[in-house]
């Protein structure tokens, strides 16, 4: 009987692991889904905006440790908010200086943002050094929660999960329940007509891009709890991020969620029965197969052809 309860515990933890991977993928992909899905801009520097969030968290952590140790347990919330605004502000600047000139040439946005990502990586290296750094986590984020003797649910995983739900809900409300969201969706579907009815599409574009970058910053802050921060940390995530967005069907938020969920569960399940590298190969093959059958991704907005 003992092995059965043990097996149950492992199944529970493995299920949690799948959910946790799902949240990580979703958090990475949300910002990109807004920028790529809504605006059609291929932002190769998305990973670097994530890194900005991670470094922001690191800096806040170091400053807290030095100047305000009593703030230690709570600094993480401040770090998340700051990550959002700093990454968002830089995104706003980038849109103003670069992206806004390239809307008619999507392939050029790819090249330009790829160049931007290299510049940003070098900037990180110059400012923070080539070595990986790590924010000191508050005590309450470390360790695990034990509902029973055999089950360990990592607290940082729970935290990332909660944050993902919150961010997703907020984005949903903004895009589908607010006036601004309506303007965004209108601009995406027909830019000329939107301008004709009095929508300031330039402003909408800038805000959308900044929002996407801000969400990437939050993701970066969240990932300091589970991974490392280095100049090239962002480039580790970028492939998975595009995978999720393209698989989900670029312009659909629901698609992004469904895609992150299925990729994460497939990955997590296969990892348990085979080695890590093989699981990745199988997941990628499955995604390619499904994309061959459904080129527009899992979900897509129906358009008249």
């Amino acid at each position, binding site marked *: 009987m003992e092995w059965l309860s*043990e097996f149950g515990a*492992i199944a529970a*933890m*493995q299920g*949690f*692991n799948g959910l*946790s*991977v799902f949240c*990580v993928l979703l958090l990475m992909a949300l910002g990109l889904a807004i920028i790529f899905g809504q605006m059609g801009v291929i932002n190769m520097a998305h990973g670097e905006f994530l890194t900005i969030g991670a470094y922001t968290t690191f800096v806040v952590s170091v400053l807290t440790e030095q100047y305000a140790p009593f703030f230690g347990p709570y600094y993480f919330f401040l770090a998340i908010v700051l990550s959002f605004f700093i990454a968002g502000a830089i995104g706003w600047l980038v849109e103003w200086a670069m992206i806004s000139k390239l809307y008619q040439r999507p392939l050029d946005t790819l090249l330009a943002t790829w160049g931007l990502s290299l510049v940003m990586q070098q900037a990180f*290296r110059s400012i923070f050094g*080539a*070595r*990986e*750094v*790590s924010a*000191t*986590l508050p005590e309450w984020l*470390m*360790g*695990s929660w*034990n509902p029973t003797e055999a089950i*360990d649910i*990592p*607290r*940082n*995983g729970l935290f990332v999960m909660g944050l993902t739900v919150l961010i997703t809900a907020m984005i949903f409300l903004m895009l589908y329940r607010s006036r601004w969201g309506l303007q965004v969706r209108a601009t995406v579907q027909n830019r000329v007509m939107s301008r004709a009815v009095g929508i300031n599409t330039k402003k909408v574009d800038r805000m959308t891009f900044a929002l996407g970058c801000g969400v990437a910053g939050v993701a970066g802050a969240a*990932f300091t*709890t*589970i*991974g*490392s*921060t*280095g100049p*090239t*940390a962002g480039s*580790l995530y970028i492939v998975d991020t595009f995978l999720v967005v393209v698989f989900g069907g670029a312009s659909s938020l629901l698609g992004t969620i469904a895609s992150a969920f299925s990729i994460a569960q497939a*990955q*997590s399940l296969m*990892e*348990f029965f085979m*080695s*890590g*590298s093989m*699981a*990745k190969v199988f997941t990628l093959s499955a995604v390619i197969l499904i994309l061959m059958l459904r080129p527009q991704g899992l979900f897509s907005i129906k358009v008249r052809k």
Partner: protein
Amino acid sequence: MDSPTRFLPRRLALGAAALSLLAATVFGQMAVAAEVNTTGLAVTDTEVTVGQLHSATGTMAISETGSIQAERLAIEQINAGGGILGRQIKIIQEDGASDWPTFAEKAKKLLVGDKVAAVFGCWTSASRKAVLPVFEKENGLLYYPTFYEGLEQSKNVIYTGQEATQQILAGLDWIAKEKGAKTYYLIGSDYIWPRTSMKIARKHIENVLGGKVVGEEYYPLGNTQFGSLINKVKLKKPDVVFTAVVGGSNVAFYKQMKAAGVTSAKQNLLTLSVTEDELLGIGGENMDGFYASMKYFQSLDNPNNKAFVEAFKAKYGKDAVIGDVTQAAYLGPWLWKAAVEKAGSFDVDKVAAASPGIELATAPESYVKVHGNHHLWSKTRIGQVQADGQFKVVFESDLIEPNPFPKGYQ
């Protein structure tokens, strides 16, 4: 006004005198330099040029920066002590940029263009394999600092780090004896070094220690999700988790281990790939109590190491940390100096021939000796991670003979 032509003969005479003087010095110098150099290397009466070939940019810069610093420190110290055979060492540094073809190209530039007498460089096996044919064809001399998988030996390379059997066997022997370990879980990043290391480890566990490998897994470089793996470790409950995960993946791995409750209180873990450098990123509190098998730790307690650590921190700041490879890189210039002085020449063939048997009693790791197979005799130590990001040495082996082609382990 005098016309300039009136002075021409005098000028000519002056010029000729100066020229002959110059020629005399040049040929005179060549005559002296030729005694210690018969193959046209960049050696003059006062200077000898060496190359430094590491990644100062790209993904490997994180690791190789320490090697660059240590080699520079050693060369500075040698110069301050009067240089080699009365010559000051001049460095030409090239950037391999974490790109293996670039490494090969820069190696060729250093050997053919700059005629350097020796090169200190490379970090990954991939970069070493890329430059190896160049060094063999152009007959250069490379001092390579990283612990690596073995299965290689070249008359043009001196390996100053450990090869696989030195690092692995002593570590496994220790943990089997000390912790009574019977079952092992092997984990690595997915490329040649971890795979070869684990192959050797598995043979040793199964054939020598009489233990059992209950799992063996590899994850892609840069992987940050170890949840499933950690669950499998929990399910199988191995006596020892034996890892060779490299780079930033380590941070994710140990943070997630700690979050999942797999700490040193419940689980023995022995790593081949976490030095003080990686520990800086992981955070000592996330690895507290786990073990690493290396030949060098910054905390080694001997006078050589005290002086080394002090000099390193004086030059690169008090927060600088020194890992295993950094120390091995520091040995390069000193071993070269000893071999050149023994040979009485900078010629690559003579220096290579003089290298076996060279001893270094001043090495920070305490003592090393060059073997006939161009690897070093060295001790292997087990360090236990402390919360402050340093290692406490809990075991030290005898001097171990390098064995890059181990019989029965392949």
